[in-house]
């Protein structure tokens, strides 16, 4: 790959992005109203300010949810090859469960699951 192709890469990249933006501003029919400028929540006009402090509990729950998420991602491939993986694979998945369970137990003990 030479320097010209790299320059071409940038030019084509900028060009494509420019074209996309240009088309989306020319082609569609335009109708404006104040609701369109608002952040989309659920279709109903927003009430009050959005610059609020959120309860930190939401984040905690999201992080704890991640434990189970990762668990699923790893268990599916293991379940598919369970017979081939044999006893060694089983031991490994048990260790994995143990570490994840420890994380959950820690969060539980620290009261992260309590909603205040």
């Amino acid at each position: 790959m030479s320097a010209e192709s790299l320059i071409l890469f940038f030019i084509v990249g900028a060009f494509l992005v420019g074209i996309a933006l240009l088309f989306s501003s020319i082609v569609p029919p335009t109708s404006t109203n104040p609701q369109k400028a608002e952040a989309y929540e659920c279709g109903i006009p927003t009430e009050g300010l959005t610059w609020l402090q959120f309860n930190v509990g939401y984040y905690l729950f999201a992080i704890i949810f991640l434990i189970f998420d990762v668990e699923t991602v790893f268990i599916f491939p293991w379940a598919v090859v369970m017979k081939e993986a044999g006893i060694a694979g089983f031991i490994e998945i048990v260790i994995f469960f143990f570490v994840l369970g420890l994380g959950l137990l820690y969060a539980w003990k620290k009261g992260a699951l309590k909603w205040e």
Partner: protein
Amino acid sequence: MLMLIMRHELLLVLITVILLLVEIFLPADRKQKIILPALILFGVVMILGFIPGPTGRLFGGMYITTPLTLLMKNILTVGVFIVFLQSVDWLKKEENREKISEYFILLLSTLIGMEYMLSSGDFLMFYLGLELATIPLAALAAFERFKEKSAEAGVKLIFTSALSSGILLYGLSMIYGTVGTLYFSDVVNGINGAPLQILAFIFFFAGMAFKISVVPFHLWTADVYEGAPINITSYLSVISKGAAVMILTILLFTVFSKVAIMWKDVVYVTAILTMTIGNLFAIRQKNLKRFLAFSSIAQAGFIFLGIIGQSQLGMTTVIYFVLVYIFSNLGAFGVVAVISNRTGKEKIDDYDGLYRTNPMLSLTMMLALFSLAGIPPVAGFFGKFFLFAAAAQQGLYILVLIAVLNTIISLYYYLLVVKAMFLNRSDRPIEYFKSDGYSRLGLAICIAGLVIIGIYSPIYEFINQFTFGIY
């Protein structure tokens, strides 16, 4: 026993799990008793690490250990042990008592991340290790989270590391795009200096430069170092930086070895910038934490002198310098930590007349600063001398000249602190106090390291035998 190859990491994971279990099941009023067992456990792991064992590759080449990486891991582990010793006094404070085992767990997690990073044989593994080493650090920087500055430090650290990781990942994705693989052994053959690869390298280097706080990517350093609890600052500036320097050196010498022409100029310019700007800003600092932050930026510039040579000598000197740097900077930070924990004083002016009241602390600080500045009897001189020699061997005389000039500038501000302690008189000096045993042990190890490495040359030869054949 294939898993013995990964013994360093597995042992650390084991202690982390044990500490987590203890944290879960121990009643709150007995948590303070965990410090000594945790230190002993970690000490045992540190000593076990020195026992020679098998080396090789695991997981299809994603994880590689060589005698060299084992040596690096051992150096880092010793450094972390000293950091642990120095932080006991701080952990025993009323407000930290509940979080003692969390402190150990988070710090050990970062160490595990660094060890995986050092042993990586694949960019993916390298990135995972890097993130594992960075994210807990942000939590640690915000450890005293009710202090505004500490929280600020945590937020700044997480933002800058997110930014730098993004840049680094972009570079890695371009490397993957041009080479089609992420394994180091295959990337070496695929890299030929194509323009896109040069761009990829610049992104990769910029990402790493954030972690090592090289100018012009250093702006987060001073604020984070000042705001974070002092033991975390010393960890950030010594262990975290040392590990990043080591892995950067390895990657430049192995993965990017065929395209040295591509990175030599980059390293050359950043080395000069880092040394000079780090030094010039250090002169103006009044707060000792900020002062040491800028001094550590300047030190990173000196390390680049060893990297640029791209020789076996360069590799040895980089490791040797990091080893010396660990002892000297931890010594200086140890003294600042002790004084800050007892009196809350962190300004250079507060140290006026310290020698009259606390002679031992002043002498330790003096030795550590002499080593940082590079004054002969202590190890820092040899560290710098070898770095300069490695650059001079490659005929980079202008770079060496600039480095020497910078050393002279650095002498000025290091000696300012020494002058404050020994010559200045003060009506209200810091009163005499007896520091706790753990801190004294930590400082004693630092001084022993500085003196022994300085006068006992076989250590250099010892490191040299490991670096043979890396390049």
